[in-house]
């Protein structure tokens, strides 16, 4: 604790004071927790029959297969689509030709600035709200467009993060533009980008919950079905939220591991949501 640069190693009086703060803080946290638990207890949230459904094998199967699996399917399809779209748009944004660069830039900016939910609702109506499977695909398409645009920006930042000498050396030995990109820049960029891509998976997974608004399958639909049947809104919410948190924590652990493994102690790639002129005036795309 004393190795933080923000405060000195505490002396005896400060230690006592910190113990007091610690005790007060613990009291506050425990007090809030106790209050929440007490209120939930009074409201009957912890009664056995409200939780029984989560240990009944049939319903567990429904939650895991109809719920989690569908959610993961939507997120997975969206991520695969987003990677393809992101690669296309990202390379497009890095292109030397204006006719390719500007449309890519426009598409990326558009889908990054529009809320996913708005896209989802629109796609849902375009696909036909009464058609079978339209809400599933509305979620997938909306998430693909949004995450694809973000990944395009990640790709651009990743390629630009490859040391300049690599590109120059590749040109110097006579490689063509495509070869430089495919053989030299992209393999190194992907390594830098992987943690950012996984973080984007987390975003996509969380956003599948928005599918609720377009009546999509997945955990949020199961949530509704279960609490309508058993009148246990809060327990169901807790279980569903835990499933999301669990999967996200696994993904976070994977991202951290990859970061250590592939990138080492270097700074993680930062991708800004703000468009700005390229700082050094290099050809990193317009505006």
């Amino acid at each position, binding site marked *: 604790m004393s190795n933080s640069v923000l*405060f000195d190693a505490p002396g005896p009086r400060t230690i006592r004071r910190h113990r007091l703060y610690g005790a007060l*803080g613990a009291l506050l946290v425990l007090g809030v927790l106790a209050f929440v638990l007490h209120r939930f207890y009074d409201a009957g949230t912890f009664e056995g029959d409200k939780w029984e459904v989560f240990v009944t094998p049939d319903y567990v199967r429904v939650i895991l297969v109809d719920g989690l699996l569908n959610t993961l399917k939507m997120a997975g399809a969206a991520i695969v689509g987003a990677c393809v779209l992101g690669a296309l748009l990202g390379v497009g944004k890095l292109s030397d030709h204006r006719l390719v660069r500007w449309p890519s830039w426009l598409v990326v900016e558009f889908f990054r600035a529009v809320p*996913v939910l*708005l896209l989802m609702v629109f796609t849902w109506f375009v696909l036909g709200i009464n058609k079978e499977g339209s809400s599933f695909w509305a979620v997938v398409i909306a998430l693909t467009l949004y995450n694809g645009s973000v990944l395009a920006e990640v790709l651009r930042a990743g390629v630009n993060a490859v040391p300049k000498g690599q590109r120059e050396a590749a040109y110097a030995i006579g490689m063509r533009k495509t070869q430089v990109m495919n053989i030299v820049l992209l393999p190194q960029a992907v390594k830098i980008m992987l943690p950012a891509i996984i973080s984007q998976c987390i975003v996509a997974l*969380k956003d599948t919950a928005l599918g609720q608004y377009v009546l999509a399958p997945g955990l949020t639909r199961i949530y509704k079905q279960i609490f309508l049947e058993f009148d246990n809104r809060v327990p169901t919410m807790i279980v569903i*939220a835990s499933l999301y948190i669990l999967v996200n924590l696994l993904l976070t652990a994977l991202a951290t591991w990859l970061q250590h493994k592939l990138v080492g102690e270097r700074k993680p790639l*930062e991708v800004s*949501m703000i468009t700005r002129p390229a700082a050094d005036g290099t050809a990193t795309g317009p505006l």
Partner: protein
Amino acid sequence: MKAVFDEFDAYLQAFGYTLALFLVSGVLSLLLGTVLVAMRVGPVAVLRSAAGVYVTVVRNTPLVIVFAFFSFAGPTLSIQFNWFKVSIGDYDFTSLFCYAVLSLTLYTSTFVCEALRAGINAVPLGQAEAARAIGLPFGGVMRQVVLPLAFRAALPPLASVQIALIKNTSVAAVFGIAEATANMRSLLNDFGATQRFGIFACFALGYIVIVEVFSFLSYRLERRWRVAT
């Protein structure tokens, strides 16, 4: 598109609610995020881990579920805003609005906390050491030296977080607030057969204008505030 222009007042009002949600929760989330980050890097172990757990849990929960929690479990926990009824012009801010602000604030503040923590890590070591050397306690180090620098260093990620907040206000539509996304859905319901692309274009444009104006302002601020290196 005609459907939007026929009821242009409703369109503007819907984006008014979007803006109101953004402004109120934006300011509150910055405040709460700053408190959280002070707890997270501070010397009191209990607060450090409490803030850490809070940030980890809320960050990994979908915003819809945070909303659902406060909308449905709020009354059980005496988190009620029935007393809250403010009308400004044509705008009615009711308890639904408060729940939305609460959820957006609690959710966004965790991202603000993480952005600021990265900003604090970017502050040169010598600054904090110099602040300690002249005898400042932790509060002074944070308030007078580290946080001002961290805010400047963290401005781009903070702006990204706030832009995400602008877009996240659309989630309030799911919980019955008549903001832009809800307005679009009801228009699509009525006129979706013939004018869906026009309607979508109008609403997308509204969001794009808000996002672009905000990112322009934050870019200006960033240039003005840039720490001399």
